[in-house]
């Protein structure tokens, strides 16, 4: 989910994704950065993202990941689902006694 969100705006390389997620979550979510790669390969295999090698701003070769159409649709579905769930959970937790 988070990876898909990170890729919504623009294609990115692995390190960029970890940076983006940490930034957005105000450093709360600090995953082992390594755990990202199996997830990326899995998403790619599922056809939700695709990758290509590009040259970065400071002239290094890096692999950029981008959302596919399936990926966008999947993300939208999941997001809606997530919202429903978290809203429900919030409602329960914050219910006035």
């Amino acid at each position, binding site marked *: 989910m988070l990876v898909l969100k990170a890729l919504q705006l623009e294609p990115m*390389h692995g390190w960029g994704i*970890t940076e983006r997620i940490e930034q957005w979550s105000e450093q709360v979510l600090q995953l*082992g950065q390594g755990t990202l790669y*199996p997830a990326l*390969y899995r998403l790619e*295999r599922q056809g939700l993202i695709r990758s290509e090698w590009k040259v970065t701003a400071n002239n*290094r070769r*890096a*692999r950029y990941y981008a959302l596919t159409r399936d990926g966008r649709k999947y993300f939208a579905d999941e997001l809606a689902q997530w919202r429903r769930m978290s809203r429900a959970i919030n409602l329960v937790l914050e219910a006035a006694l």
Partner: protein
Amino acid sequence: MKQLWRRLQSMAGRRRIESGLSEEIQFHLDQQTQKNIRAGMTPDEARRQAFVRFGGVERVKEQTRDEFRPALFEDFLRDVQYGARLLRRTPAFAAVAILTLALGIGAATAVFSVVDGVLLRPLPYPDPDRLVRLFQVDASGRRNNTVSEPNFLDWQRNARSFAFMAELSPGPAPVSTGGEASMVSGSSVSRDFFDVMGVSPAIGRRFLDDELRVGGAPAAIISHRFWTTRYNSAPLSGLTIRIGGRLHQIVGVMPPAFDYPPASEYWYPRELSPPQTSRTAHNWMVLARVASHLAVEEAQRELSAVSRAMKAQHGDGTWMSDAAALPLREQLTAAARPVLLLLFGAAVLLLVIACLNVSNLQLARASTRHRELAVRLAVGADRGRITRQLLAEALVLATAAGAVGSLIAYGGVRALLLLQPANLPRITDVRVDGGVLLFALAAAVLTAALLGLVTALRTSSTQLRDSLNEGQRTVAGGRGERVRQGLVVAQVALTIVLLAGAGLLARSFMAVMDVNLGYRTAGSTLIDATWNSTPDPGLQRRRVDTQRDILADLQRLPGVQSVGLVSSFPLGAGFFPNGRFLEMTRQDELSSREDLARLGDQAKERAGFAGYRIASAGYFAAMGIPLLRGRLFDERDGPDAAHVAVISESLANSKWPQQDPIGRFVQFGNMDGDLRGFRIIGVVGDVRELSPETLPGPLFYAHYRQRTASRISMVMRSQTPSGLAETARQVIRRYDPDVPLQVRTVEDALERTLAGRRFSLLLVAAFSACALVLATLGIYGLMAYLVAQRTREIGIRLALGADARDVLRIVVGRGVLLAVIGVGVGIAASAGLTRLLEGMLFGVSATDPVAFAAVMTITLVAVLAASYLPARRAMGVAPVVAMRAD
């Protein structure tokens, strides 16, 4: 297909992805490092932090690789290669493990191929599940093997559930195909037999209507086997076969696979002889094919209703109260089923023991590989990967074992068939084929799974730190050791179960050998001779004279002590007719069948039941059957004298308890139609006729010169039995060149009846011997390993002044403790399991203490020996060496 293509593609792209992954991770780390430097860290610190944030690089790579399709498959191939390489590096371990497993798989597969051929495979006839055999069921609920013809005809007329029904009468008869006659098995079959079986002759034709009537042209159909061996596959036109004196034209040859009734070589129409009218003359086997729209159970219900209606109509006129329809396959193999299932169980136990043993070996090896595995774990390989690798190794082992095991099975099946030719039904259906090999494969895969899982569970549950340390020095048993000890206990327990089974079978065998048969078997030669039966009294008279002359000539042969003849030789394959007799007040009280029938129904207390035999006086002497009271037949009892009889002790005791049977009169004319009464002149000892296991039945002996039998067995007792057979054959040939003769020793006849018992005993004993060897090896291996591991501890003990005997005690004590636990568990399990054997036991109970004690002793001795050797080595440990062992 698409999947496969993707896999191939992705395998090809594998290297590219792999290097891409490395580059990508490198890039990531560099970026992080630079970011850290920007945040003010020194370059070294920045790099270190980057690694920390990232986590284990190798681990990530492994996990990411798992995401590649078909990583799993390819990993697996690599694991297999790796496993095979490892095994090549340790050939001794590989050889022992593969042989052990191969033994288990081979034994299980060999027995399975027999089970498959005999019990599982459908009969080789169309729609075989519709074939049933019909039985009369008597008032006491017993199924009778034979049916009377009027009952059969009523079934055929009234039961609508059967498409076809046929009666047949299988048995050997004197058969000649041109040369000397010999006894050959065949069947007289009624019209619909071939429709019931659903098979027609492969060559030639079925019987024509004109051949299916009294006085019709005698025709016969022969088996393919008989056609090729006796007629060299000659064209049918003009081929004849002489069956029981009558010449039959051969009109057809059955297909090679057709074998019913088992071992039949020819079939001829029952309709050639006149119908039988007695509802109590039980001479026929009845087969039927259930109509295609009905289940066997429905047919059974209808048959049962029809039969009960027949009983209501005929009352005492028929002995049938009910009827049963049993699937032919079940009925054919019913006798062999328990033996085969027993053997299969034993073979599976052996396979499990083999698995446990190899698993144990693998564990021992795994502990020496701990450091290798620990290093792999440390650099980030996850436990699943390691489990998969161990599984792959196990698979390599099991596959090799499966291949060797299939060879063992192939040889084993051939050996089995040699060992047990006659007593097993459907033996021709036994072979090692695709299905059986599939079984071997399944056994191998299951074995691998079991092996790999046990080993992997044990290995991967070990803590990383422990393994790294434990590899250094071990003092006393850790977890792994407990697992291995458990395996040894299980092996010992299973071995005990097998040994207990073998012990009980052996005790039964000894008990059977010990049985007092009532006659001697050593040194006697047996000649079966079968004359064609004839209703002509003149011919009968001449035949009896011939028999007398033959006996006299045989008696004169050098070395012969006594000679006799009997109509049904004990342990023989012939008939053992029995029936109801009546006691009479005087010898000629009854003179007509009507009188006999009337009196029989009126005076039930006069009736008795006995087997009816015809014998000469010399028979009792030659067999060593003692005369207990009265006299035997002698010269006074000629053909024209009053008929006399000798009875067995059990008949005397059951019919005339506390009274003297001698001088009493008996009417037994329903056996041969001769209504002249008998006077009882003597009582002889009981004999076990059918087999050593069956109790002696009441017997009635008539004199051969007064009552005729076409089928006789001559017994010759001599000091020099060898060579006698041929001389005797020549003597008989001088009198009758055509009569079929079969010569063998009485011991052979006894041997035949014991063949089945010997077969199961031999196999179970062989299996348990293998099991014992494996279990002993297992204990030896464990002990040797423990001693090696504890060298240091032992050294310290010795250095501190412990006696070498203490060391011995510790090591052997450990082995014995394991064995005692195993024996305890095994005995408890056996006590339950041997009950399944009960039907095969004779003269011992399923929990026979002698057998169990012997089994325990054998096992404990083996275990002691297996622990003593490593212990000896431990005693010899020099403290200094031990301390330096690491």
